[in-house]
């Protein structure tokens, strides 16, 4: 129970900033602002309407201050929850709560990163953990690789099944004009790529790109007066199990079980009702874990579930329809893009990758090293 009203708020505007490798000199706040401008234009609102501002990035400690200054606004309601890539799914819940309480009416959630342009090392503060750092794990890849090792051991998941996730993401990406990757990928191509942290090759790992964007959240009442069909916030859920991978209770089961349960309960829906599934695929194991933990297949069956193109275009379940963090874009904290794609699928704006009759979409964010999980279920007017 989180006290939020099903369908009380809606996402009404979405936009990406420039993606991939942005032009020289762009800052993360430039990209946030670009996203804000485009997302407001998407719904027909103006900066003067914004009274709630939420932001997170690895590259600015006080990002919401930097963004408010940049935009020249003084929003009474601000939030800067930062829990890695799932931050923006938390922001949606916080924005919905703030709107319900009257703390704001139009909330903008923004993200920006230039990690490709400046290098990953410059983009994130290096954190020393005296109980992990001496062993030189290649983070975050090694943490997810440890989880994959456990899944393979417990359930017989194979490297080929992991690779099937990357191949499906690539097939979706080839249908997305703004995706970073433009060439087809095969299972063999994944397996024979450079090994990073066994069982992951570089093709099991997310991209390193620049990028940003924004989404606009408002009350259901106001949403119905705006330019585009609202994507109603039907359900939200959040859960944390750990920060460091050595403290994760069970490496084969994530906090998505809890976050999903909350979100489904609020939405009064279950996995069978979901038409488009947007999962934070930082690594190929993520998609498998979240398909299981969010109830799309039984625990342990994820590897077998993703085989044979079943989550690729024309498969049995539409998963990561923009190409995901594996093939579309991954600036470090990818969660915002899950929301953008879910909204576009509900609006029917996705062209060649459009999911037919898409009424319910799930955006599931992951942060840290499988640490923080946040689920947002969105639906069209017909679902409210």
């Amino acid at each position, binding site marked *: 129970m989180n006290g939020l009203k099903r369908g009380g708020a809606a996402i009404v505007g979405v936009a990406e900033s420039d993606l991939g490798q942005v032009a020289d000199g762009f800052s993360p706040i430039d990209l946030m602002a670009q996203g804000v401008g485009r997302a407001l234009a998407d719904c027909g609102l103006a900066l003067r309407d914004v009274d709630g501002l939420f932001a997170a990035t690895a590259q600015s400690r006080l990002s919401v201050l930097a963004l408010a200054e940049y935009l020249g606004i003084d929003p009474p309601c601000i939030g800067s929850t930062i829990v890695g890539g799932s931050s923006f799914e938390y922001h949606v819940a916080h924005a919905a709560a703030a709107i319900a309480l009257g703390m704001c009416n139009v909330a903008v959630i923004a993200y920006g990163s230039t990690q490709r342009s400046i290098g990953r090392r410059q983009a994130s503060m290096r954190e020393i953990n*005296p109980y992990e750092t001496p062993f030189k*794990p290649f983070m975050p890849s*090694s943490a997810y690789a440890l989880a994959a*090792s456990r899944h393979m051991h417990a359930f017989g998941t194979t490297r080929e099944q992991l690779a099937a996730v990357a191949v499906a993401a690539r097939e979706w990406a080839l249908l997305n004009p703004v995706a970073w990757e433009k060439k087809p990928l095969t299972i063999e191509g994944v397996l024979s790529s450079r090994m990073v942290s066994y069982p992951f090759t570089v093709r099991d790992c997310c991209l390193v790109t620049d990028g940003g964007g924004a989404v606009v959240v408002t009350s259901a009442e106001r949403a119905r007066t705006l330019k585009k069909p609202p994507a109603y916030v039907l359900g939200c859920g959040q859960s944390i199990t750990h920060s460091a991978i*050595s403290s994760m209770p069970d*490496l084969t089961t994530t906090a998505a079980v809890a976050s999903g349960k909350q979100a489904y309960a609020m939405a009064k829906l279950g996995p069978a009702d979901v038409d488009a599934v947007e999962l934070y695929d930082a690594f190929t194991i993520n998609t498998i874990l979240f398909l299981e933990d969010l109830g799309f297949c039984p625990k342990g069956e994820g590897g077998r579930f993703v085989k044979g193109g079943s989550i690729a275009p024309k498969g049995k379940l539409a998963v990561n329809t923009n190409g995901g963090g594996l093939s579309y874009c991954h600036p470090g904290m990818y969660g915002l893009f899950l929301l953008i794609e879910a909204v576009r699928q509900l609006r029917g704006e996705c062209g060649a990758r459009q999911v037919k009759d898409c009424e319910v979409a799930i955006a599931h964010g992951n942060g840290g090293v499988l640490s923080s999980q946040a689920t947002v279920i969105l639906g069209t007017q017909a679902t409210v």
Partner: protein
Amino acid sequence: MQTQNPSPLKTYLDHLERGELAYQFSPQAGRAVFYPRVLCPFTGSDRLEWRVSTGAGTVYATTTVHPTEGAPYNVALIDCDEGFRLMSRVEEVAPEAVKIGMRVRLRVHRPGGDEPPCPVFVPEGAR
């Protein structure tokens, strides 16, 4: 007057200097706590006892890191018999030969210089 309790990390490292892997035990929760801290995550109590592990454990998860330069190496999570888990590595075998379920025992690694000792593991039968 200021109180100057030794930090959990300092106590842990002092044990390692003596060749011991120390962990904490929460008498109220009846279970091990690791990494060392000032409050028990199971009860919220500050009553935590220091204990020394026998150094016997089992590989819980494992990966081989392939750095862009240099030789591949192992990173593993080890479940110690006393009921706590830690990140470490298994030495004395090829990194890819480290398997989940493998029984291992402690060997304190002393990198020298400014770096503190750290707990690594070797296969149970290794000399």
